């Protein structure tokens, strides 16, 4: 049945546009008010510009002295003025991508559950509980990871993989088993981005028109076939957007990662080895930075992080907005 689409509130609700007559009654208040809201709106672009200028300006000395070695050098040795960001950059990407791989299937599962399969009584509570994960501060995740997750990895998981499964010689699982590791960071990050991916995925799924579902069911599709053939294809772009938004979150996450990743300047080759991320590098060293070049190199690191997150988030927003406009 071709039910007429609901009237779009976006068009009905846009406020009447008119200009107050200059010099008319109440024009002083109008102008003050207009000035306040316009100035406030301008603060946002100004702030971003200022952030970019400040970070770029302060990282200039390091860029001048070190040039591309900043990004290609693998050694971070403060006394010898060697500031190679490559291990931290790769560590950031590795931990975030690993977290995304772990979180995506679970988050999509939960989103499908809430929007398609759950008994109506369970929908709201489950959605609320998963949203609750987003309200837990990063430092609390870090505490939990440090006190509960890391010892568990050291005592149970790492020996199990190495000895019981006899995978100790595989490079992916090599290295000393302290507990604080790339894997610990990825696990904590996965839990932290779960609610964000779920929330966006849920909205994207709910934006798929009802008629699509009904059509699939009317053709004799089972529940799962309806989801696979009618719902998911319509939501594909938005779901990718949800994943990338989660990735953006993970890339900039600082405290929890700093507390469990072990903070070692090595290329991230093994899951069980300590690693570093740009955000945790900043958290650990910025307050005690020695000398202007060190500060400047850290500023450059912040700049790299800034650039990566802006690109990733911008791409994700564009994808999500595109699906929502398709409606």
């Amino acid at each position, binding site marked *: 049945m071709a039910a007429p689409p609901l009237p779009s509130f976006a068009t009905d609700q846009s406020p009447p546009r008119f200009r107050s007559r200059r010099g008319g009654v109440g024009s002083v208040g109008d102008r003050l008010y207009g000035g306040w809201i316009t100035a406030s*709106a301008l*603060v946002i672009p100004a702030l971003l510009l200022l952030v970019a200028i400040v970070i770029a300006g302060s990282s200039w000395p390091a860029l001048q002295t070190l040039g591309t070695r900043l990004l290609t050098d693998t050694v971070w040795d403060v006394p010898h003025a060697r500031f190679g960001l490559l291990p931290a950059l790769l560590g950031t990407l590795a931990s975030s991508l690993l977290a995304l791989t772990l979180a995506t299937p679970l988050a999509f599962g939960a989103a499908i559950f809430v929007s398609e399969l759950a008994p109506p009584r369970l929908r709201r509570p489950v959605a609320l509980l998963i949203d609750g994960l987003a309200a837990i501060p990063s430092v609390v995740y870090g505490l939990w990871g440090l006190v509960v997750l890391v010892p568990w990895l050291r005592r149970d998981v790492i020996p199990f993989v190495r000895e019981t499964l006899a995978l100790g010689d595989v490079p992916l699982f090599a290295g000393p088993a302290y507990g604080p590791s790339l894997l610990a960071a990825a696990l904590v990050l996965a839990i932290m981005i779960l609610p964000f991916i779920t929330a966006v995925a849920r909205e994207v799924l709910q934006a798929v028109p009802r008629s699509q579902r009904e059509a699939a069911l009317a053709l004799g599709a089972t529940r799962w076939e309806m989801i696979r053939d009618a719902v998911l*294809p319509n939501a594909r772009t938005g779901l990718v957007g949800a994943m990338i938004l989660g990735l953006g979150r993970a890339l900039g996450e600082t405290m929890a990662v700093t507390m469990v990743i072990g903070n070692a300047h090595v290329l991230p080759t093994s899951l069980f080895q300590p690693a570093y991320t740009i955000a945790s590098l900043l958290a650990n060293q910025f307050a005690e930075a020695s000398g202007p070049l060190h500060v400047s190199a850290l500023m450059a690191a912040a700049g790299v992080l800034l650039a990566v997150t802006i690109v990733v988030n911008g791409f994700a927003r564009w994808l999500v907005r595109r699906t929502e406009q398709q409606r």
Partner: protein
Amino acid sequence: MDRQLPVGERATLLARRRRSAIMTSLVWCASAVCLLPLVLITAHLLIGGARVLGPRFFTALPAPPGVAGGGVANGIAGTLLLLVIAAAIGLPIGLGAGLYLAERTRTRLAEAVRFLADVLSGLPSIVIGIFVWELIVRPSGQFSALAGGVALGVLMIPLITRATEAMVQLVPNALREAALALGYSRARTSLTIVLRTALPGIVTASLLAIARVAGETAPLLFTAFGTPYWSLRLDAPVAALPLQIFNYATSPYDDWRAQAWGGALVLIVLVFALSWLARRVTDRRRERLSSVVAGGAGE
């Protein structure tokens, strides 16, 4: 739909139903796994927090390792001070920008600001901390509560902006038109009619934004910095609950680590209390807004 629904002998109805049942149960399992961390973290928080929590925890200053007792009184006070400064910065700007977006929906500046507000809210909070360090701490030569509050305020701006926009757009246009038809000026319409109707929703959004930044640690590392002493001065380092949790958790002392759980429990309760309060206000807003709509606008 480019894929055809399976027909023929190999995909019997029974097999298809079985497949559907398997996938459905997988989805159930995924949701259960999603809820597992929440249960685990809550349980550990309650167990760990209960051990150290007591009246002294809320009234005492931090104790050196090895000394019994000790609390987070200065951290709680410091966090509240930082939130007040943050709100003083984030609220007027966020509110104004949100009103701008809601009222001049389609101007080019509005489109740009909407996008840039999203970009700003996606920036890593530690980068904001470094930005404020360079802007305030470095020139003034010292860590300060003011710098910490500014960092949190910057984080709040995009949150309040987008929420205000959403809330103001819920206000029925008929209300606006009625006020304008009665000869209200534009500013008066916005402030006394639109903003007033949307106010509970905006209060909710603001409380949620405050709750969001209350737990932020990374932007405070190089701005508020933290102190074991009692200080509420704007131009000196100030203690904050998240910073104390971080310092305690990463310390090698067992009694400090135990204190970290207590601090975390207090912080979580603070965050959830703010969120709960926020939701209470929204429920009242719904009633009020729906009565306004039913009484006047007739959508």
